[in-house]
């Protein structure tokens, strides 16, 4: 019973926060709604026995990525415009709701099944969830882990190169003035 109440709360608030994120006018309010969405999704991870992901979601998503967004938002001081939605947004809204309805019908009609793995909750709880995640990550997924490390290095270098203030010799003007 408690599970249903918690799931209902987390699901409802995350859907509402998602809608607020794309519907509110002020970008800072959108960022705060996104924060609420991320925290409630982290709550869903706890219900799904993924404690390590819960911690990562709060530390990395809510703590780092969202602060980066809010930082850039306040750095650029975007002014809220009168027309903040796309000109043809009713068309997209209609298409989106239609696709969503079809998908929901499909979701509730699908019989879910498949081969069960070995990581049942009893096995995981013997050593602890974080231990299980670490063992899996550094044995089966070691190559992927290294690739992600190189990817993040590339992303950092790319971001620095892009956002660097251009210095150095001023290029000669090519066009003739007057």
């Amino acid at each position, binding site marked *: 019973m408690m599970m249903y109440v918690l799931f209902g709360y987390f699901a409802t608030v995350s*859907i509402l926060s998602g809608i607020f994120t794309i519907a509110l006018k002020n*970008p800072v309010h*959108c960022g705060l709604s996104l924060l609420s969405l991320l925290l409630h999704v982290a709550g869903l991870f706890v219900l799904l*026995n993924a404690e390590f992901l819960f911690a990562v979601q709060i530390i990395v998503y809510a703590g780092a*990525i969202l602060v980066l967004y809010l930082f850039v938002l306040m750095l650029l001081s975007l002014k809220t415009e009168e027309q903040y939605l796309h000109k043809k947004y009713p068309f997209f809204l209609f298409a989106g709701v239609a696709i969503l309805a079809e998908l929901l019908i499909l979701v509730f009609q699908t019989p*879910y099944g498949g081969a069960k793995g070995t990581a049942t909750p009893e096995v995981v709880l013997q050593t602890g969830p974080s231990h299980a995640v670490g063992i899996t990550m550094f044995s089966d997924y070691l190559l992927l882990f290294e690739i992600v490390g190189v990817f993040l290095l590339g992303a950092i270098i*790319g971001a620095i190169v892009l956002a660097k203030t251009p210095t150095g010799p001023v290029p000669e003007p090519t066009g003739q003035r007057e």
Partner: protein
Amino acid sequence: MIPLSAYVALSFILFMTGLLGVLIRRNFIIVLMSVEIMLNAANINLVAFSHYLSSMAGQMAALFVIAIAAGEAAVGLAIIIVVFRGKIATNVDQINLLKW
């Protein structure tokens, strides 16, 4: 026990919310935030299947998705800063330099 289809339905609803945000908003940063909503929806799906099928693979994929999201946010926001510094545009539909 909550049925798996409830989690999948929640994930679809959040994904479509994010997709609509990408399509209908004009502000750069809100578009990137909508991408984050979509990534979170995918994460819910992965972790739900991981739990119901007693496997660690979904949780691993969700962890890597979070890492990719961090890289995407860094590079996307750097591009936004460049675009704003050059005073090229303030909205997504005004960036049409590469439009054919």
